[in-house]
């Protein structure tokens, strides 16, 4: 099953909509709570990233009986230094974003820590992040 959500740039009031809805669907599928938590954290961070840093984008979630695959893509401007962005506490968020309580520099590290597989492709034209989370508890 595929679910697609558009994420407009700069609209923090609606960040979290995709993660809330996916959370509800996963409960209907009786996915273990620990796994739901990991999906929700990864997805929420991804949503906030697109809102805070990009020109807008979308999230695509593909759910089958074994895993959820999340693809987050935006229309730029890209991550200048992916290695640095992956380190905890590093943030390029503006003062405005930080004042809203976002931008602690935990976005990408949190997504990596909570997914089984993660891949980032970035260029000035846009960033695409792929995450895979298995429904099996290890």
């Amino acid at each position: 099953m595929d679910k697609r959500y558009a994420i407009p740039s700069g609209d923090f009031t609606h960040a979290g909509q995709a993660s809330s809805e996916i959370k509800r669907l996963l409960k209907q599928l009786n996915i273990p709570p620990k796994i739901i938590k990991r999906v929700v954290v990864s997805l929420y961070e991804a949503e906030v990233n697109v809102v805070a840093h990009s020109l807008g984008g979308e999230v695509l979630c593909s759910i089958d009986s074994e895993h959820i695959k999340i693809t987050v893509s935006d229309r730029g401007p890209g991550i200048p230094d992916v290695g640095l962005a992956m380190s905890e506490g590093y943030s390029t968020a503006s003062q405005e974003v930080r004042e809203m309580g976002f931008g602690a520099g935990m976005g990408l590290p949190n997504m990596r820590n909570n997914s089984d597989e993660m891949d980032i492709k970035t260029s000035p034209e846009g960033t695409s992040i792929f995450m895979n989370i298995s429904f099996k508890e290890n």
Partner: protein
Amino acid sequence: MKGVSFHHALTVREELCQGCTRCMRNCPTEAIRLFHGKAHVHPDKCIDCGQCMDACPFDAIVIEQDDFEKIFSYNYRVAILPSVFIGQFADDIPERYIYKSLLDIGFNEVYEAEFGVDILQTIGNRFSTYADDKPVISSYCPAIVRLIQIKYPTLVKHINLLRPPVEITAMYIRKKLLDRGIDPKDIGIFYVTPCAAKIAQIKSPEQQKPEDIFTGVINLDYIYNLVQSNISKNKKILEEISSDLPIPPLTPDAGLWSLTTGESSTVSGRTLAIDEIHNVIDFLEKLENDEVKNLDFLELRACAGGCAGGVLNPGNRFLAKERLFHRSQSMKEITLEQEAMICMQASYLQHYIKRDRIEAKAVFQLDEDISKALEKLENYQKVVNALPGIDCGLCGAPTCSALAEDISKGIADITQCAVLKLRRTDDNLAIKKVWGNSLEPHQP
């Protein structure tokens, strides 16, 4: 996750139910459906919060209780009251009249449930929290504990495993009576409940034990009537006969414990108190999304105003709250003598201070088998898009999405949707004025 149903205190009296849908639309867990014009409660989804009872204009939803006469099967009868009981009475009725009347109607001893807070503070020097994750969520309100069990499985590990003060009070009293040499068979400890959730908790097979904490539960409104009529009949002599009546001990903190912020204000760190079940649900959604940072403790209550808003309270909740605040100003700290008495039972109580681990219950799953659940979920998505999305309740389900869920589970049919039917008829101009000509499904 276990699929076992909870014990429920709320029941629908079908002969009074008019099928008005008010309860169904107010239920925070979408546990109610209409069949043959009567409300039916889904036992797995009901958390006994009492919203339905509050919404029912026909008194068709009732809370079970033990027969009051049951207390007389015991030679030694103890009543444990919530503090809010005192707040139900007019301000010109002194507390001693209320206590004396409770003895007059048949109890040998009366305690306030919140005395358990003083016991816990005395034996632990502070109010302790035991949970795997922060913020710790109070386990005081049983409706909230159940809400988290069924709707927020990822948050179960946040619930404080401290035994609720009301149970500590009952265990303390029972132990004291046993130490006095009273035969366990002769002891009857009865809780006077302001809500359905507390009865459901006490009567749940998974709780209770440690020598059966409560013998029975009686509804607060029932006891209120007995006490009020005793006061009305004996007003003239009550002044004299209650003059030297000892009032059970209670500190100001404990006396305000059951009101909103009563508990959170005694816990250290950053705390938050949220009351009324819909407010709590909004907040738990945020907490589950990991959007809430740096909080240490959450006091969550199903009723507005905390226990003062309990559905069985006959009085006004704001007046009740005011009376409790007013009386807390003249309440005193525990005396050394009381402290010594509590400490005598400390080692016994410490043994039971933690309750059993709380398990999540998967009641919203569409199917045990994930592939089948996924199929049903796809079906659900299709149906929900086809439905009008106005949540009118005429189909017998509280929302269009609840109907879609029932359809995908095979327990409801899309022909139940009255709005789709009306939109398909050509001649109903009056209805079209309201809803337009469109036959298009709504866009979620």
